[in-house]
């Protein structure tokens, strides 16, 4: 299988301000958010990054999406280095995170055209894709309604659609079902499986075990910025459920602090 995404020894540190030091009750001035993290995602598979809040999942995905640059290491997206050529990488990936918002003044219709233009998608192709995606996510009815007036679920659907206007081969979703109602969450997970069936490579970060079990082929468990397990879902859940396995590993790594 083709290695579409190769994450190699990624490292990212953040300075901790005096204010944050007080809040976090620490004297450390530097926080290692991601510590020499590596994994590979193959064509046509869904790779899940599992970890608690603050484990380093979002930072990892942001580095892959070239929103922030790593202190060390690199990511190769279909052979293109995110460090050397971030612009090219952005053409090849679709990135969706709850931190990325849409301008609420505009309509889904306008935003789709706007982002298609930015990705250099031909007008005809963009129109065809817009019809397909809008129909699939039932956005058509709201195509001319300002984003500000849409429901949270519909906004999330529009964000998802807009992030893949250019039909990328690699799709990165940070907490794809976070804050969604059950119906919208179902639509999103079904769509991810559909993308997988189309041969797309998908990387999702989540702390929802059921989502990982439903859609992922391989899983990476991150604790305190370090990848502690990276294996197939089948292998990880051979003896115990994913949830039990995760807490075993977490207890082993976090030790006393977790027991408390």
């Amino acid at each position, binding site marked *: 299988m083709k290695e579409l995404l190769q994450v190699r020894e990624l490292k990212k540190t953040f300075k901790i301000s005096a204010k944050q030091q007080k809040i976090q009750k620490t004297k450390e001035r530097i926080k290692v958010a991601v510590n020499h993290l590596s994994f590979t995602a193959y064509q046509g598979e869904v790779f899940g990054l599992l970890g608690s809040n603050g484990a380093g999942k979002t930072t990892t995905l942001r580095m892959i*999406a*070239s*929103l*922030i*640059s790593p202190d060390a290491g690199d990511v190769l997206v279909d052979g293109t280095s995110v460090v050397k050529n971030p*612009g*090219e990488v*952005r*053409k090849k990936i679709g*990135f969706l995170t709850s*931190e*990325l*918002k*849409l*301008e*609420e*003044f*505009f309509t889904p219709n*306008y935003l789709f055209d*706007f*982002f298609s*233009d*930015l*990705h*250099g998608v031909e007008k005809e192709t963009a129109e065809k894709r817009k019809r397909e995606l809008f129909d699939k996510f039932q956005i058509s009815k709201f195509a001319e309604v300002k984003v500000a007036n849409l429901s949270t679920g519909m906004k999330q659907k529009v964000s998802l659609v*807009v*992030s893949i206007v250019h039909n990328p081969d690699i799709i990165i979703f940070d907490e794809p079902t976070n804050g969604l109602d059950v119906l919208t969450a179902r639509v999103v997970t079904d769509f991810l499986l559909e993308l997988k069936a189309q041969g797309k490579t998908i990387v999702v970060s989540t702390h929802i075990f059921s989502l990982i079990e439903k859609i992922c082929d391989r899983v990476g468990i991150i604790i305190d910025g370090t990848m502690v397990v990276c294996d197939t879902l089948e292998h990880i859940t051979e003896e115990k459920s994913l949830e039990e396995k995760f807490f075993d590993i977490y207890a082993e790594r976090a030790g006393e602090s977790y027991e408390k």
Partner: protein
Amino acid sequence: MKSNMMTVIRKELKRFFTDRRMVLTTLLMPGLMIYLLYSLMGQGFSSQFEGTEDFKANVQVEALPESIKMAWEQDAPFEYTELTGADEKEQALDALAKGEGEYHLVAAFPENFDAEVAEYQVSSGQPAPAVEIYYNSSNTDSQTAYGMMQGMLDSYESALANKFDVNPEGNQYDLASEEDLSAQVFSMMVPMLMMAFLFSGCMAIAPESIAGEKERGTIATLLVTPMKRSHLALGKVISLSIIAILSGLSSFLGMMLSLPKLMGGGDMINANVYGIQDYLVLLLVILSTVLVIVAVVSIVSAFAKNVKEATGWVTPIMVVSMLLGVTSMVESLCKTEPVWFLIPLYNSVQCMNGIFSLNTDMVNIAVTVASNVLYAGIGVVVLTKMFDSEKVMFSK
């Protein structure tokens, strides 16, 4: 991908022009408000002056001399009542101090004023006969009456020792043309006001467009697209400049149409003294100035975490630009050597001063426009770097 810059420009313009509230507050209101405000102020001033001409003061006079009585009977600028006795004077002064009664002032002449004046020799070194004028400065009518009385007595004093006349009637002594008057008024007022209008136009849109997008998380959505950061920066600066120029021109139009009314110049002051060439050069200066202002405000907005912070940081810069605008009113601060025209914003003020004084120096205009475009270019490079900096774009 080269069209990405145009895509950003189109988006920004659509965002602005389809928002009726923004169009109303940024484009229509400034010009309209300035026009109405200046016109009303001008009307207010004029009516005050006209009112003074018609005003007839009620005065009380103690020991009114015959000479003055005769003069007043011929052409009386006052309605007067003569006071008889110290008690009446005391009562009159008391009423004046309290602002009561119908009288606006009390004038007390010395007994035998005419004789004392006739006998008085300046060379004697003795104090001259003194006329006391009591008035109440907290009352506008009393203040006006005081001015009239003082003016009348000054004229009378001059007439007594009439050795020569200055500017006797029947000739035109003020040789200023309509052009000169208009140029003087416009060159003093417009540069400072124009800087304020241009800056406030930028402030109304740039923080919202950059710090606002940062605050709402929408700029990150743009940053994950393949668009070059430089295209994003240029797209923002150009679109914001277009809107800021339109806003500035709206204010400019309102100001040029109403300034003559404000200055009470009537037919003597009007904007027709400037030709199409003057306006074209002015437009060029305004255009380059807006580029600099937009670049500065955009950089500050990109640094800020939210719109409120951006507006707070931009306000002192606006104050500095207005202070630079005042330099057009101080002759010693108006430099003409080209090197001074390398100073951003000061150069724009001085260019506008030159244009409105009808003393356009094309070398200085060229230096100003070229340097402003260069500074705006540097600003775009800085903004590009900022869009590329995770510390700036994602700091919380």
